[in-house]
């Protein structure tokens, strides 16, 4: 729940930062450096700056809770004496600056401070200076585009038709370059973060692809605006309302992209599955003469002293083999059992060994064959990983890690 709140605050922060910075940048480039800001966009910059400052504070508070919630040296140090603290401080100062003094030439400096925050912490910043710079350029271009659209929307309401047409054509000319820079920086940043490896099986890459898809929609809409609606502004009355709607839709897509980015940077990591010690528990152990698939155990209610263990064994050898023993450091004894139904009565008995034909498989499952742990030193709790050793007559010893699932059920293998 805290993670979800953090992602939401982050998304809000992105929108506020891009709005405040973007309107400031676009105003300077579209109306000449230091050009006066109209009252509408000025109010927007004020509100976005204030929202950014508030979201930086709230984000710091959420980090404090998620890191443990104690006001001790370890947590306060990690929060404030770190790139994270520097980035939040830049957002706070830049946001307050734009909220208090929007539209002055010096507001440009505040915009640069906020942009610098994007290069201070995050996946790109952690990879080194090149990716840090390229993500700042990417955010800068995205902000200009986002802010420019707000300026167009505001001008569509207030300006005379001639002024508006002039503004649109200026925006249009500059936007080509900005969009090219935006896309080049996006590709460069992604390549640097992913170290030039692109694996669509990983969630982060799929997230990036979703972002690219939304960006393609945005470009399509921008193309319609530029090549269909803008040339008709002078000749047709219906072009202006349609252009306004299209700009609103573009802003909506922008919000979608920022939401996707907040999700991507909060929940996913570009280096997932390349490392991580827990990735191995419960994963198929398919090499060697005996392959073991989904070894698992249910969690035990009320800390009982006995438990079961289940898996599928595949004999990769050209001859039959037998499971003759099992042991685990967690239990005094691990024995082979078979449950069977005798009429309506469930019976369980010890078996000496379990034969697996050459190339065959056998499944240990509830109600059938299973491993029985007795004299457990600690109960199985969901999420535990329990090391066990299986002993086969011909293949010898096979080490397996049982993944402990919920009480009475299999563990979730989706992650």
């Amino acid at each position: 729940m805290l993670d979800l709140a953090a992602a939401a605050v982050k998304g809000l922060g992105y929108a506020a930062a891009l709005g405040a910075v973007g309107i400031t940048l676009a105003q300077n480039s579209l109306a000449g450096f230091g050009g006066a800001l109209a009252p509408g966009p000025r109010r927007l910059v004020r509100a976005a700056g204030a929202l950014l400052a508030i979201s930086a504070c709230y984000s710091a508070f959420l980090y404090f809770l998620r890191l443990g919630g104690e006001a001790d040296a370890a947590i306060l140090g990690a929060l404030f004496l770190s790139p994270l603290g520097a980035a939040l401080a830049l957002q706070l100062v830049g946001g307050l600056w734009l909220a208090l003094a929007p539209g002055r030439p010096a507001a440009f400096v505040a915009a640069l401070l906020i942009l610098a925050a994007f290069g201070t912490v995050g996946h790109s910043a952690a990879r080194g200076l090149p990716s840090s710079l390229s993500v700042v350029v990417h955010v800068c271009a995205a902000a200009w585009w986002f802010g420019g659209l707000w300026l167009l929307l505001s001008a569509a309401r207030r300006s005379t038709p001639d002024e508006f047409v002039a503004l649109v054509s200026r925006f249009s000319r500059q936007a080509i370059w900005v969009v090219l820079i935006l896309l080049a920086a996006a590709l460069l940043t992604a390549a640097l973060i992913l170290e030039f490896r692109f694996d669509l099986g990983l969630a982060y890459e799929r997230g990036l692809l979703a972002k690219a898809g939304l960006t393609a929609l945005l470009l399509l809409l921008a193309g319609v605006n530029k090549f269909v609606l803008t040339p008709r502004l002078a000749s047709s009355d219906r072009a202006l309302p349609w252009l306004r709607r299209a700009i609103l839709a573009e802003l909506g897509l922008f919000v979608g992209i920022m939401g996707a980015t907040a999700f991507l940077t909060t929940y996913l990591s570009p280096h997932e599955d390349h490392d991580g010690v827990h990735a191995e528990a419960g994963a198929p152990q398919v090499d060697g003469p005996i392959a073991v698939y989904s070894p698992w155990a249910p969690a035990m209610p009320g800390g009982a002293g006995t438990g079961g263990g289940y898996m599928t064994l595949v004999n990769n050898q050209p001859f039959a083999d037998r499971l003759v023993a099992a042991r685990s450091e967690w239990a005094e004894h691990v024995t082979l059992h078979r449950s069977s139904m005798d009429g309506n009565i469930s019976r369980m008995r010890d078996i000496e060994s379990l034969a697996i034909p050459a190339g065959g498989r056998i499944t240990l499952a509830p109600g059938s064959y299973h491993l029985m742990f007795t004299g457990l030193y600690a109960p199985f709790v969901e999420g535990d990983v329990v090391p066990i050793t299986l002993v086969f007559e011909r293949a010898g010893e096979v080490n397996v890690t049982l993944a402990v699932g919920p009480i009475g059920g299999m563990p979730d293998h989706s992650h």
Partner: protein
Amino acid sequence: MTRFVKAMLAALLLTLPAMAMAHTALRSSSPASGSVLTRSPSALTLTFIEPTRLTSLNLVSSAGERALPFSAAGPLTYTAPQPRFAPGRNEVRWRALSRDGHVVEGRIIIVLRAPAR
């Protein structure tokens, strides 16, 4: 459009629970998670994959829950001296801030049993 947005939201929400614990930045611990020991070790050491700031270390055992004091022993390594594990199950819950600004967390299970008779 609204149906599309709803579908996207539903897809997003469905993926959330699986993602919540997705970041695992711990390379190893000593003793390793899943270890069964006969006496409490003199120290618990955590080694991360990349520079990470450990912010919270809590031990949950039959003796209750308490914070373990810890200190940095290098850019990747933290040490908690004398963790004083209790008999049975010991769950050490850690939380940290990773270099790229993620809150990462995990747990280490150490089982303490009586020496063999």
